[in-house]
């Protein structure tokens, strides 16, 4: 599956990373190399093989529905780029 420049721009938009015209060409070249490496997988017959996401046979734990954390808003917002009145500030989304 060969990539083209439009693919790069589409993927970059999905990933929310700005890629300039000049970077796109270089990115296309490097990503194509990596995808070439990945293509080796397609030669393997995997019919009927269960996908593996974890090496141990485990399930998600459940916990009691009780309060375990205290509010640390001031501490956490002290490292934010922009806050006001306890809220995170971002550019206006709704007019």
């Amino acid at each position, binding site marked *: 599956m060969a990539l083209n420049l439009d693919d790069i721009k589409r993927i970059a938009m999905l990933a*929310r990373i700005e890629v300039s015209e000049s970077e796109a060409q270089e990115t296309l070249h490097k*990503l194509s190399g990596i995808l*070439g*490496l990945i293509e080796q997988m397609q030669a393997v017959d995997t019919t009927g*093989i269960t996908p593996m996401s974890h*090496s141990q046979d485990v399930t998600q734990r459940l916990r009691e529905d009780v309060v375990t954390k205290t509010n640390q808003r001031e501490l956490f917002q*002290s490292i934010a*780029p922009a806050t006001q009145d306890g809220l995170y500030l971002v550019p206006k989304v709704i007019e």
Partner: protein
Amino acid sequence: MINSSLKQLGHLLASKQISSVELTQSYLQRMAQHNPGINAYITIDEEKSLAQAKAADVSIAAGNAQALTGIPIAQKDIFCAKGWRTTCGSKMLETFISPYDAHVISQFDAVGAVNLGKTNMDEFAMGSSNETSYFGGVKNPWDVDRVPGGSSGGSAAAVAARLCAAATGTDTGGSIRQPASLCGFTGLKPTYGLVSRYGMIAFASSLDQAGPMAKSAEDCALMMNVMAGFDERDSTSLNRPVEDYTRGLAAMTGDQPLKGLRIGLPKEYFAEGLNADVAKVIETAIAEYKKLGADIVEVSLPNNNLSIPVYYVLAPAEASSNLSRFDGVRYGHRAAEYNDLLEMYMKSRAEGFGAEVKRRILIGTYVLSAGYYDAYYLKAQQIRRLIAQDFVEAFKYCDVIMGPAAPSTAFKVGEKTSDPVAMYLEDLYTIAVNLAGLPGMSIPAGFAQSSEGKPLPVGLQIIGNYFDEARMLDIGHAYQQVTDWHQQMPAGLE
């Protein structure tokens, strides 16, 4: 003293021959002298370290010392440490002061160890040479024109140059073992789930695992006693009985302490791609193990070559999801100029991430995008099972697997930066272990000469079955009783 084991340092502290403050100061002095040339640390905070050392001295005086109380440990800058700048090697987190402690950090704090500083690393742990760090590459203490390996390259250089008593690392595809091999010390990646990932900045969550990086297997065993254990804050943390990883070490003496041990050599690890000088060192180490009583059997891991393509689907896919949290809203870098929210995201991420991190996010985004999930992600997870089954089959015939940890010795700075695929092949012998979730370690096994005649370390990899860390550490310790590779130091750093 800088070559002392953790146990010896513990004795010096307990018998009041030295205080933790004095010990910490002596390391801080070495760091001031040697770190500028090696760049092993991103953040050093003398005041914080010395405050911990003072508290440790109080504990020791009160008779409350544990094995690592008062001992200065370097922490990879992937672990959030409250009040410490925690960058993960990225511009994205250049000014991030962590508001909380990772589980690993709180475990070391609980026993009174001293946090000596935060070590350099490939950006978001994505790299095999430490050259992707925003804070500059780390130099290999054995030859400063060469890389220390990665991604835990700062911890690796700090251990090799004796700029800490021991260090922590993380290993997603070889990031503890490959630098351990290239810098000549002992590094262990535990079974997936043994060490909590809480507060460890996520790269590929189904593969990431923290582990010790230290001079010897004995030191790593003491570190494991602190690091391992159940933590409910990590949903993949395994709830198992607490182990003493040092329990078998004392028995590793006498003529043939490993009598009857079956060592499997995977023929695929000794095929094309392995440097001849490295192969020679590994063969000599295997011969030493025969003398210690082990039997050698040949095994096969037929799908090993597929581990790299599988990894470069799964790890970027998980990374693209994990790194979506860096949006310039709650913490981390935010672009200075933007017109709307979308542009703020896109510029902040374009400025905050380096080239390799962006590549991996883009690859991950692509393989997870509509229409490609089955062909890439699902296929990779299926082959992952085949790779894991290879190990199940191999362990029917052997107790541990041995081979090289890296295909070559440390390479030159800049040698592989232009070709990501060439860099990815560095992890040919380590990635399958992460995919299977098995424990693996690298121990110093000797040296190969560089083209300039400098000695470059070679690591022997030991791969164990699930939860077999204690036995692997015994096996490493037995070898370190009859060899002194682990005590060798780079020239000029005495």
